């Protein structure tokens, strides 16, 4: 089954696959990106975002949430390339994250990808039926109808809520000295409030709280209405971009230290030659065997 999104809307496609309890893959392409959803008996079990959309990749999400460092992510990806295992499975095997965390972030990934494709107005879809076995490390399979409800809400409300925040990048911090009542928070607000300790970058706070962009911005708006947070525009050199700068500094330091080590290694070789000339060369030997003349 395949066609154009303009002719057959994405919610309809998902509903069709779900109602007929089909198994297989649904590839949706648009905006130069291809996202593949895997269905098992009409339920979404996994998603494969476009490689070029690194923001939605599981490894990037976990790195932004602070579960992994850049170097660990690179190593994991390298080992994934040789072994063929999926990154989530590798991370659980290495003990970097628990199965529960993985399940939560897989669900987040599916939601993010679904919301992403719902924004498409032009593009194509293609469904291929085959037997799909749900991955062992994943959580429960998701009913598309439930996600569709959230998706519709996202399409309706997100532009409005996002419009209340600065249009470009912004940063968010807790207000100091404010008394809070955690019982008054909704579940999402409570999670987000805790995660505000993690970073001033809202994107990373949402990742840490394991919320979609839509859920996060909604909770953030609620916290702002309560007067618990401050929102300000991020200007170059601001603390909001400190993380990026720090990341650049780390990358620079890594390269620079490698270069420095190479230079010192060369200096070490020169020192070895110099020591050889001073203590072991033919001339030095001549001096140090002066005692032979006495015998």
């Amino acid at each position, binding site marked *: 089954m395949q066609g154009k999104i303009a002719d057959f809307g994405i919610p309809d496609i998902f509903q069709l696959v779900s109602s007929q309890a089909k198994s297989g893959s649904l590839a949706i392409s648009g905006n130069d990106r291809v996202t593949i959803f895997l269905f098992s008996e009409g339920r979404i079990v996994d998603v494969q975002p476009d490689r070029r959309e690194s923001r939605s990749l599981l490894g990037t999400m976990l790195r932004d949430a*602070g579960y992994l*460092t*850049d*170097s660990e992510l690179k190593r994991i990806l390298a080992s994934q390339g040789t072994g063929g295992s999926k990154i989530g499975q590798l991370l659980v095997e290495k003990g970097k994250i628990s199965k529960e965390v993985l399940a939560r972030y897989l669900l987040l990934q599916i939601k993010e990808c679904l919301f992403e494709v719902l924004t498409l107005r032009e593009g194509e879809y293609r469904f291929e039926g085959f037997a799909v076995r749900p991955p062992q490390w994943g959580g429960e399979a998701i009913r598309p109808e439930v996600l569709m409800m959230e998706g519709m809400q996202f399409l309706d409300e997100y532009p409005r809520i996002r419009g209340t925040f600065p249009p470009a990048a912004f940063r968010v911090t807790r207000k100091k000295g404010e008394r809070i009542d955690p019982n008054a928070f909704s579940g999402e607000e409570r999670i987000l409030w805790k995660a505000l300790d*993690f*970073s001033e970058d809202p994107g*990373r706070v949402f990742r840490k709280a394991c919320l979609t962009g839509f859920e996060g911005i909604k909770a953030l708006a609620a916290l702002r209405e309560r007067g618990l947070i401050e929102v300000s525009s991020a200007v170059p050199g601001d603390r909001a971009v400190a*993380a990026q700068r*720090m*990341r650049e*500094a*780390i990358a620079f*330091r*890594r390269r*620079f*230290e490698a270069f*420095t*080590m190479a*230079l*010192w*290694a060369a*200096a*070490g070789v*020169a*020192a070895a030659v*110099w*020591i050889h000339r*001073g*203590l*072991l060369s*033919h001339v*030095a*030997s*001549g*001096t*140090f*065997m*002066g*005692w*032979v*003349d*006495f*015998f």
Partner: protein
Amino acid sequence: MLAYPIMTRRVPNRSRRAWARYALFLLVLLPIAPSPLAAADPFPGYPAVVGAQAVRVVEAAGPGKGEVLEQEVRSLRRAMFEHGILSINTVPDRIFDRAAREGWKHRSYESLRAVARVAPLSVTLWAWLAREDAVGFRLEEFLSDMDGLSGAIRVYGPGLLGYAAWTVLFASASAGWFAVWASICLLLRARPALTADVARLFNRFPRPEIIATGAVLACFAVPIAWGVGLGAAAVFWIALSAAYLRRGELLIGGTAILLLAGIFLCGGFLHSIQPMAGKARQGRWLGVEGYYSPGGPGAGDVAEGRLGGPEWERMTRFARARAEMQWGDQHTAEALWTEMIGEGRDLADAYNNRGIVRVRLGKTEEGLADFEAAVERNPSGGRAQWNAYQLYLQQFRLEQASRIQPAAWAGIRNLAPFDYRAEEMTHGELVASPLRVGDVWKQLYTVRTDWLREARESVFHGMFFRPVPGKWVPLFLAAGWIWAALWKLLSRKIWMHSVCRACGTTTVVVGSRETTDICNSCRAQVGRGVRAGEEREQRGLRILLHRRYVRACSVLFPGAGALWAGKELQAMLYGALLSLSAGLFTVSWGAGRHVGGMIADMQTDVWRVALGAVVLLWMFGAAWGWRAFETLQLNHNVAGERL
């Protein structure tokens, strides 16, 4: 019946004539072509009869020729007694060379042991025999050879000087290795903090850490590229890193500078005895015993050397008189001994030797009087007693002979390392007195102000301290030492960088104390940090890079890792052991490769053992440093998982 008459091959007469011509030609040529031994004159300067007998001894040596060799050795010994020669050290050298050439080197032990009686002053021979006994587990022979070795060293001046020079060179080489090891390890230990401080000077520039890294690298590389001496560079590096070191590390640096001062003075000592080196075989003044001088000692020997003074003059004259005595110029020898007796110096030995000369000249009564005079001045002197005893016997003065016989026999047996057997000495053998090496030793080690002056001209100055001018070296070393101390004191008053030994975090501190070289995060054992994200990653990267750096230092410069782990005193002990092994290798390697004979044979074993020890110590030091640093990180919770 003729069998195969046609096939019988006859050698033509023409061919026979040709062979005869060739044989005749060779017969004519052979006497013209010198024999291998004659070509180089293996025993130059000795009287012909002695030299010829020595050649027979060398030719008689070989596996399974013990009896023949023993006879030849006895004959040579008698010829030596006739000329007042105590030892011909060249004999074992020639035999060993021949054995090496003919492939029975490993079976030359018996032959060389046999010739020890004609070369009792050969330090090399005794050392070689002792080594062979040690390898073959022959304890009794080993003890005997060690006795011979110590006797040869005590009697044979060049041997003693050779061992002194070997000891000084070994100590100097080891000290040089220690200085190099210590200075590089300390500079690498101080490098991160030093780089951070240098970067503060370039704060106005973008990326000051790049400039600082280049500057610190230049501090290390420029002396090397410039070809600066090992000691000068070591002092510079130690002075540069002093402010960032712990007390134990400062002790290592201070010791290295003091050892360099010792090297400088050792250079002066070697320079002062240099005129005596290389001349022993040519028969200069200390080369008389064991190696003979055809022309006697040169008049300018002492003047040429830097060892002046009446004592050295006296010893020179003694040696010259011995040379004349051995050469056979008895009249000159008698005049020289008489002159020395007139001056009232070395009376017992001079009387004994003049007595021998006079007996050779036919003045038996005067000779006997000299022996008696020698005994009177030194009653325990075995040689004069023996010589007097021999003359009494020759003159049938049996009563006097029997009176001194026990003392004479006991005295002659106790003369190490000569192996005199009174019952064999039935041909009126007279024993000469050699120069007392104790006098040489005493003079040599009398502390003189000239040593400092001589040190400036020594070869060690150029090797270790270039381009510092000779007269500035003591000042340079003192300045380096004082600078290190002041720099350390100053570091406790000003803001400077400190690097955490466990994780490599750089912090600026004032009033630096040793307790600050572990950062607060490591003290709190927070691992990679309490915060997540980039900060955590940055700390993880810092720990990772620090670990790589220390591990690289540990492998390339063993012991450096232990310094990072705070084991300064153990590291110093380890550095001393490593330096001693490397010093042994340095002193033995050249001799093992470039010198022939028994010395090369022994030194080859020595440098192989030394090299093995260096390799083992290197591996141990690398592993120890690695492990000690890992333990330090483990204790501060920055190890374990892969960062």
